[in-house]
């Protein structure tokens, strides 16, 4: 097992923050959507943000984590998103890229948030076809992430874990396991995390996402607004100890750019140092 890399989200445009992050992180994870700008319906990567990333291309690894691909839309993925991804691939060295297993657009209309997919044969086949096309187009690993289910689930052919296993088995793609999202699903819908993990082939996991959120109307939401809670860290440790995901390479602390100043740059740096102590310096590979 290789040492687990530690990284965080970065949306560009905060050079002072970037300077503080670089000595600590192994990689930065960014979303094409957050780096993008658009005119007359044509999206492109903001040139200033791209230049900022190019400047540090040789100092840190880059991971791309999309929001707007909408891999689960019945009427096709977002072409705007693919254009942004093309631009990033042309300009930066990317280690791998990922997207949420969800949909955000229906017939081009923006739902305003990501909605989970029904785990049916039709969806499985559609998602696998699209993952294959993406992997063919971009020759680096592609991962899918489990998303918080906000709406009640539509009846499905497969369990959560079985569905993820089948996508990975059929396509060879990997997984991001968002540990906080699992906690949300457990709280909101009674997902049994232990059963889920027992059924999941944890060797598909290449990356963990750690984050926090807040309670709204009695629901746990995944608005990444703060530092990771002890319960999320404990669950992470438990997954590492009990399920030993052999292909896990990276742990990302996610925070929305909107909350960087509220949380505080120093607190974020401390959080990353804490994750290094917990999961890097004490990982099996480095002991």
């Amino acid at each position, binding site marked *: 097992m290789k040492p687990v890399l530690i990284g965080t989200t970065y949306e560009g445009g905060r050079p002072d923050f970037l300077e503080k992050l670089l000595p600590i992180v192994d990689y930065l994870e960014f979303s094409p959507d957050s780096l993008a700008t658009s005119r007359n319906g044509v999206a492109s990567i903001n040139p200033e943000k791209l230049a900022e990333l190019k400047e540090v291309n040789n100092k840190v690894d880059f991971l791309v984590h999309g929001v707007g691909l909408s891999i689960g839309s019945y009427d096709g993925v977002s072409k705007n998103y693919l254009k942004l991804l093309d631009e990033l691939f042309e300009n930066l060295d990317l280690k791998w890229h990922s997207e949420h297993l969800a949909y955000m657009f229906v017939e081009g209309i923006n739902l*305003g948030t990501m909605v989970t997919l029904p785990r049916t044969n039709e969806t499985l086949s559609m998602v696998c076809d699209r993952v294959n096309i993406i992997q063919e187009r971009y020759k680096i690993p592609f991962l899918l992430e489990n998303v918080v289910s906000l709406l009640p689930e539509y009846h499905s052919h497969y369990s959560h874990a079985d569905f993820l296993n089948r996508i990975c088995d059929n396509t060879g793609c990997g997984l991001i396991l968002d540990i906080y999202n699992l906690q949300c699903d457990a709280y909101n819908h009674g997902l049994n995390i232990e059963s889920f993990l027992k059924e999941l082939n944890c060797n598909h996991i290449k990356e963990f996402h750690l984050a926090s959120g807040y309670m709204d*109307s009695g629901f746990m939401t995944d608005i990444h607004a703060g530092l990771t809670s002890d319960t999320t860290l404990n669950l992470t440790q438990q997954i590492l100890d009990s399920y030993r995901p052999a292909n896990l390479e990276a742990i990302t602390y996610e925070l929305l750019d909107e909350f960087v100043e509220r949380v505080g740059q120093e607190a974020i740096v401390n959080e990353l140092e804490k994750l290094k102590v917990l999961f890097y310096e004490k990982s099996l590979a480095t002991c």
Partner: protein
Amino acid sequence: MKNHLPLADLQQKILGLVKDSYLPEYTDENYFHSVSKSLNLQLVRAIALWWRQNHLERYCFFTARFLKATGQMETTTARYFQASNHSSFIEETGPDFLHWLSKNTIGLTSIIARFELGMIAINKNEVYEDEIFWPCDPFPIIYGLVQNDLSNESIQSGEFCMTLSDKIIGSFEVEEISPFQFQPIPPYL
């Protein structure tokens, strides 16, 4: 095993529910009736609105602060997003929202949206000319919004003409006008 609705039908119905433009019919599966009455759906709508408000607050600072100070933020943004298929990009949604406000609201809300639309265009080095009639002194209002401290005292009576232009240093000029020169803004302009 239950029959599953084709994904296209399911997603179209979910879209309608999220946008509040679809009411489940008698023939629809119980699932849709239950979603339509659920707190979950309210939460999805609230989260979608939260994201959009968040982006708008960053893009159109003056207008968002004015809407918040006057208690209109939630209802106005909800009305806007329900009425339009907005872009994912704030560079497009922002101006569209301000245009929409300037056309679909009245009084100071419309005026401030129009003012900010001009300021944003000028800051982006676009060629821009506009003349806005204010039914009160704009400066205390602008100051109140900058300080995030808008109060009733910020609204001081008078009639003023504001000229916005990329050719003016500072982007705008304000001139007090006599009552007979004042052209009140028609409600839907």
